[in-house]
C-alpha cells in the first residue's frame, strides 16, 4: 500500500459498525434514549495548552499540500492554468482515471463482500484458512503485484490490465472490514427475516448487505483513494492516470506549472470521493442495542455450490498471491545468489527499516495529542483538527511531495534533502493510520481509573502514564505497525524527497524495473513482502479482535 489511509481504515473503532439492521433501527431508536449513552467521560479540566498547541501545529502542517496546490494555482493565473487543464491530454487522463475508479471499486466491493460472506458464513471446509489467506494481498505492494503480472503476461497494458491488477491488490481493503462486521451481526435479525418468509438470497440482500453499508463505503473509499494515487503499478503496464502523468511531468520539468495544474485536478477528484463517501454514509444507527452478548451466527452449508465457492476463493488466492509470488520466485531462482551479493541490498534494507521505525515513532507521538483531544475533549475544534489530517492523507503522495520539495527549496532550505523532511512527509501521509488506532485505544480506557489514581495523590502525568498509557500500548503498537507498512512500500514521495545517496527497497526495486532488470529487482520485491507480512497478519488479527469486543 503506497498511500494514505483515510478515515475508515480497516480497523476503525468498532462503535460505528455494530450489529442491528437498518430495519430494526426505527423500533430501537426510542429505546436508545434509556440505553447507556457512550458520552465521553469528562475530565474536569480544560486540555493543557501544550497539547492543543501540538495538535494544532501538526494539523496546520497538514494543510500545507492543499495550500500549495491552491496558491500555485492562483500564482499561475487562470489563462495559463486553463490552457494547461482544458486540453485533450487531460481529457484522456480524466477518462482513464475515472474509468478505472468506476470499474475497479464495484469489483472490489463485490469480491470483498462475497469473499467475506464465504469465509464467515458458510461451512466451507477450510474457510478459516482462507480468511487469513485473503488478507495476504495487502502485504504485496501494488507495484510488486504489477511486476509479477507483467512477468507472467508481458503483453498486459491499458485500462483492463489496470483494473485486473488494482482489483487483486485492493479488494482486501473491502474484504477485511466486511468480514469483521459480518462476525458482529446479530443473528436474530436474520432469523426474524427468515421466519417472515424471506429466502436465503432475500436475507442476504435485504438484511445482511444493508448492515454492511459502513464497512463497504469505508473500504470503497480507501480503494478509490489508492487508485487515484498509485503510480508504479500503472506505469509498469502503460496505463496513464493523473498520478502517472504528474510523475512524468515532474521528470520532465521538476515542478513545472503543468504538473501543478494536473495535481489540482487530482485533488478535486479526491475531494469528490471524500464528499461522496460521507454523503452516502447516511445517519442511520447500526449499533446493537440489546443487552448481553450476541450469539454466534450459525454457518450455512453451500450444498451443491461448494465447488463454486472453492473455485472463487481458490481462484482469487491464485490470482492475487500465486501469480506475483511465483514470478518473484522465478526471478529469484534465475538470479541465484549473485543478486544478493550486491552490498546495496543490505544497505537498502537497513535504510528502509530505519525510515519505517523512525517514521512510525514520530507519527504515533505526534498523532497522540490529536487523538487525546478527540477522545477526552470532543469539540468542534478537535473534530476540525482530526478531519484536516484525513484530508491530507487522502492526497496522493506525489502531490504532498511536490509541495514539500518546492516549499523547502524556497523557504526552509536547511530542511531540504534531509531525513527530517522525509519523516515529516511520512507523518503527513500516514498520520490517520496512527490516529484511528490511538483514538480507538484511548476510548477504550475507562477515564475513571485515571481519576482514581489522581485522587490517590498521583500527579496527573504520572496517573496517565501508569494507568491509561499501559492500557493502550497494544493500540499504539498497531498504529505504529500500520505506519511502518505504509513507509516500507512508499515510492513516489521518497523518490522526490530522500537525501542524496538514499536507497530504500522501493527505490532500488523501481530503478531495476526501469532497466527491465527483473532478476535484479526480485530481492527487493521479496524483502518488501517479507517486511509487510507480519504487519498484515497483525491487521487481520486485530480486525478479528474488535469483532469480539
Amino acid at each position, binding site marked *: 500500500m503506497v498511500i494514505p489511509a483515510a478515515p475508515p481504515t480497516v480497523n476503525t473503532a468498532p462503535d460505528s459498525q455494530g450489529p442491528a439492521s437498518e430495519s430494526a433501527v426505527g423500533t430501537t431508536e426510542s429505546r436508545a434514549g434509556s440505553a447507556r449513552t457512550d458520552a465521553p467521560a469528562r475530565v474536569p479540566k480544560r486540555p493543557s495548552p501544550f497539547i492543543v498547541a501540538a495538535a494544532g501545529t501538526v494539523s496546520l502542517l497538514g494543510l500545507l499540500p492543499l495550500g500549495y496546490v491552491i496558491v500555485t494555482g492562483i500564482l499561475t493565473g487562470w489563462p495559463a492554468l486553463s490552457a494547461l487543464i482544458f*486540453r485533450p*491530454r487531460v481529457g484522456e487522463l480524466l477518462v482513464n482515471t475515472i474509468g478505472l475508479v468506476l470499474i475497479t471499486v464495484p469489483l472490489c466491493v463485490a469480491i470483498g463482500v462475497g469473499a467475506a460472506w464465504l469465509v464467515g458464513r458458510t461451512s466451507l471446509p477450510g474457510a478459516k484458512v482462507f480468511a487469513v489467506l485473503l488478507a495476504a494481498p495487502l502485504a504485496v505492494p501494488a507495484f510488486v503485484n504489477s511486476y509479477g503480472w507483467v512477468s507472467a503476461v508481458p503483453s498486459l497494458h491499458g485500462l483492463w490490465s489496470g483494473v485486473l491488477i488494482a482489483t487483486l491488490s485492493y479488494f482486501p481493503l473491502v474484504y477485511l472490514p466486511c468480514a469483521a462486521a459480518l462476525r458482529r451481526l446479530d443473528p436474530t435479525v436474520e432469523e426474524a427475516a427468515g421466519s417472515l418468509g424471506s429466502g436465503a438470497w432475500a436475507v442476504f440482500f435485504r438484511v445482511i448487505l444493508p448492515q454492511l453499508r459502513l464497512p463497504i463505503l469505508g473500504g470503497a473509499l480507501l480503494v478509490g483513494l489508492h487508485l487515484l494515487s498509485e503510480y508504479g503499478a500503472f506505469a509498469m503496464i502503460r496505463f496513464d492516470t493523473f498520478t502517472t*502523468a504528474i510523475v512524468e*511531468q515532474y521528470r520532465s520539468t*521538476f515542478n513545472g506549472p503543468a504538473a501543478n495544474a494536473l495535481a489540482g485536478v487530482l485533488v478535486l477528484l479526491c475531494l469528490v470521493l471524500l464528499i461522496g463517501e460521507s454523503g452516502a454514509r447516511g445517519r442511520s444507527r447500526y449499533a446493537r442495542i440489546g443487552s448481553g452478548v450476541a450469539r454466534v451466527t450459525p454457518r450455512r452449508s453451500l450444498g451443491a455450490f461448494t465447488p463454486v465457492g472453492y473455485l472463487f476463493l481458490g481462484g482469487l488466492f491464485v490470482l492475487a498471491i500465486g501469480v506475483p509470488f511465483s514470478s518473484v520466485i522465478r526471478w529469484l531462482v534465475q538470479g541465484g545468489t549473485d543478486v544478493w551479493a550486491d552490498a546495496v541490498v543490505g544497505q537498502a534494507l537497513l535504510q528502509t527499516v530505519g525510515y519505517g521505525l523512525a517514521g512510525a515513532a514520530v507519527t504515533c507521538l505526534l498523532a497522540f495529542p490529536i487523538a487525546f483531544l478527540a477522545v477526552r475533549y470532543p469539540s468542534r475544534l478537535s473534530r476540525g483538527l482530526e478531519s484536516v489530517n484525513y484530508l491530507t492523507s487522502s492526497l496522493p503522495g506525489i502531490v504532498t511531495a511536490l509541495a514539500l520539495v518546492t516549499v523547502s*527549496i524556497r523557504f526552509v532550505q536547511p530542511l531540504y534533502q534531509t531525513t527530517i523532511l522525509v519523516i515529516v512527509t511520512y507523518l503527513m501521509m500516514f498520520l490517520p493510520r496512527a490516529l484511528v488506532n490511538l483514538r480507538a485505544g484511548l476510548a477504550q480506557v475507562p477515564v475513571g481509573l485515571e481519576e482514581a489514581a489522581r485522587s490517590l495523590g498521583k500527579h496527573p502525568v504520572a496517573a496517565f502514564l501508569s494507568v491509561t498509557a499501559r492500557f493502550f500500548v497494544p493500540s499504539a503498537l498497531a498504529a505504529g505497525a500500520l505506519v511502518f507498512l505504509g513507509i516500507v512500500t512508499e515510492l513516489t514521495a521518497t523518490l522526490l524527497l530522500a537525501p*542524496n545517496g538514499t536507497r530504500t527497497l522501493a527505490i532500488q526495486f523501481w530503478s531495476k524495473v526501469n532497466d*527491465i532488470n527483473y532478476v535484479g529487482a526480485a530481492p527487493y520485491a521479496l524483502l518488501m513482502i517479507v517486511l509487510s507480512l507480519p504487519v498484515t497478519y497483525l491487521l487481520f488479527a486485530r480486525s478479528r479482535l474488535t469483532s469480539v469486543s
Partner: protein
Amino acid sequence: MLLTRNWAMIAALGTATLLGATACASPDAASGPESSDTASATPSGSITVYNAQHEELTQAWADEFTQETGVTVVLRNGDDSELGNQLVQEGSASKADVFLTENSPAISLVDNADLLAPVDADTLAQVPEQFQPSTGTWTGIAARSTVFAYNPSLLGDAELPASLLDLADPAWKGRWAASPSGADFQAIVSALLELKGEKATSAWLAAMKDNAVVYKGNSTVMKAVNAGEIPGGVIYHYYWFGDQAGTGENSSTTKMHYFKNQDPGAFVSVSGGGVLKTSANPVAAQAFLAFVTGKSGQEILKTGTSFEYPVSAGVDANPALMPLSELEAPAIDPSHLNSTKVTELMTQAGFL
C-alpha cells in the same frame, strides 16, 4: 602519467578481485602513487554527483575514482530534465558538486542559468571540440546514437523508413513505438527542432501522437518490438548491445536500422558533465570530471556493459559498435538544444 593511471587501475582491480575472492573485510586501499594531473591541490573528502546517466555506469566511474583518489562519491539518481530543473530551482543552495547527464539539453539548461563553473583547461584539452560547447562550462563525457529497432518478421528491409520524418506518414499508424516521456526521446526531438524548426517539429509531433504507440522507457520499447507487439521503435543504440551482451531475451529477434545521411534520426546525442559553481569541494569535483573524460574513465565505456560511445582521450568505441565516424550524424552544437521548448511542444502535442 597514463602509465601510473593504468598501474593504479590494475592495482585497484587486483584488490577488488582479491576482496571478492576471499570475502576479506579489510580493504588495504592500494591506490598507488599520486596520479592527479588536474589541479594543484590533492582531491579529498567527498562529492555529491547529480547523476542522470545510467546508475550502473556512474557507479563504476565512482568506484574506480574512489579507489584512485580516496574521494567518496555520493550519487543522487534521476532523469536529465528532472535533475536539471531541480538544480535550477535549488540555485545556490544546491548540495550538488557535479552534474552528469545522458543528453546535452539538460546540462545546457543548468548552464543557461549560469550555475556551472568553467571546466579545468586540462580536462577540456582531452575532449575533441565537437563534443564540447563553446562556453567551456561543461564537457561531453560519452555519446549515443539514435536507431530504429525493428522486428524483421513484421517489417521487411525494403519497408524501413529512410528518414525519421517518414514516421509521420499515416502508413506508419500504430506501427512504431517510442518513449516520449523520457529525456532520451526528448533529446531527439530537440535535434529535430534545431534542424527543422518549430513548425515542422510541431507538425511531426502531432502526427506522432496519431501514429506512435507510447511505452515507458527505451528498454520497454525494445522489449515490445522483440516480442512482436509492434514492428519498430525509435531508441538509442546501446539498449540493444547491452541486452545482447546479457541474456539477449529482449533483443534476440530485433535488428537495428541506422538512419545515417545527416538525417535528424541519425542524431548522436552527447552526454554532458559539469561542475557546479557552488560546489563545496571544487578540487575533487574537477578531478572527477577529469577522471571521467580521461583514459581510465573512457575505458570503462569501451570495456564495460554500458555500450555508450567514448568521446575523449583517444579511446575507441567497443569493437561491437558501428564506429562513430560511420554514423553520418547531423552536425549540431550540443549547447543549442533547447529542452524547455521541447517539453512545451510535447505537452502541447499531448505526450506529457
